């Protein structure tokens, strides 16, 4: 993207195989919104409401702030579960969407996506 020179990594959604570029300084949720999927729940974006639950299957993330214990238990945290609004990718990430975030990904990927958020692909890291 011309107006966005931030370093980015590739984030892949396990359920659909879709991927999107995500800046290493932005939350996984913010990047995900660029997929243009209807109904991606961007709630409080501050770790309190729990609508953007994900499991990090592969890759590492950095914390952007606290995550509510009411929505992510200690046990879940140990299993890589967190809220997408509260972590940024440090490396390429493979994630699974959970809870309220599953529904918008329950259909096939959108046929028309944003210019840099596309259909399933494995070659996005190169140009970021």
């Amino acid at each position, binding site marked *: 993207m011309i107006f966005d020179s931030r370093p980015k990594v590739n984030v892949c959604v396990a359920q659909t195989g879709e991927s999107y570029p995500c800046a290493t300084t932005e939350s996984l949720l913010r990047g995900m919104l660029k997929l243009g999927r209807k*109904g991606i*729940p*961007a*709630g*409080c*974006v*501050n*770790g*309190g*409401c729990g*609508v953007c639950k994900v499991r990090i299957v592969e890759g590492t993330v950095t914390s952007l*702030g*606290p*995550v*509510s*214990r*009411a*929505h992510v238990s200690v046990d879940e945290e140990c299993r890589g579960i967190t809220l997408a609004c509260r972590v940024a990718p440090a490396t390429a990430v493979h994630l699974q969407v959970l809870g*309220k975030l599953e529904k918008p990904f329950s259909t096939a990927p959108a046929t028309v996506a944003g210019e840099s958020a596309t259909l399933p692909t494995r070659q996005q890291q190169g140009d970021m």
Partner: protein
Amino acid sequence: MGVMRIGHASLKVMDMAAAVKHYENVLGLKTTMVDKAGNAYLKCWDEWDKYSLILTPSDQAGLNHVAYKVEKEADLDTLQRSVEAWGVKTTMLPEGTLPSTGRMLKFNLPSGHEMRLYAMKEYVGTEVGTQNPDPWPDGLKGAGAHWLDHLLLMCEMNPPEGINTVADNTRFMIEALDFFLTEQVLVGPNGDIQAATWMSRTTTPHDIAFVGGPKSGLHHIAYFLDSWHDVLKAADVMAKNKVKIDVAPTRHGITRGETIYFFDPSGNRNETFAGLGYLAQRDRPVTTWSEDKLGSGIFYHTGELVASFTDVYT
């Protein structure tokens, strides 16, 4: 006699420093006290009691309790009897349970939310005083909110299972605490399921509101501003402070309020609103919103419900 107004809300926050900064710099409250446990107490410039907001450090967001102030100490005993008679257990917390606050009658609403009533809180005065006061003080920060006005509680509702704690709460507030209903949303095939209510003890359209949801929680706490222009300026303040705005300035059909919704740094929703709406009175006919016009009731201009508005809460 009885309940006068909302007295304070006690909120759980996950980052105290960020929360205090938010309520001070964005809403314009001031910290009046910090206790040994690290809880912060804040108030708006136009409020005269010591605090209207308690921030408590926690590993999650949400409401600890909401408190309403009653007029006389004896009201606490009268109301304890009526709450118990309604079938809700109560506890009388001794003076000093909360600093600068008298004894508190504690109980849970049918929706599970903890409510407290108290008659005494330390008087510290508004920032303009009582003697030939200026209309507003110098040095206000952010939105410069006047006062904590009301809150909206999400209440567990599951009609097929016969659970509707919106209706239960509404009946409790009327019968045990002598609130009156100003507006309601009726849904369902027969339009007879009370899915949301707005209730008052003052002369404003709501001192508390209940909306049905999958589980009980806090939808928002709301602060009063003077005018539509103040609402716009509050949005500027939010943009300046990189606050997540949930719903940009608009108007509610319900209560006629001019509003913005946004989130504190732990994800608790706040509202700044202007407009007294109308004179709420016990003999004013109740306003009813139907399921098909609910969108207009919530956001009058677009007439469309924002998904996050009903699905996202703490």
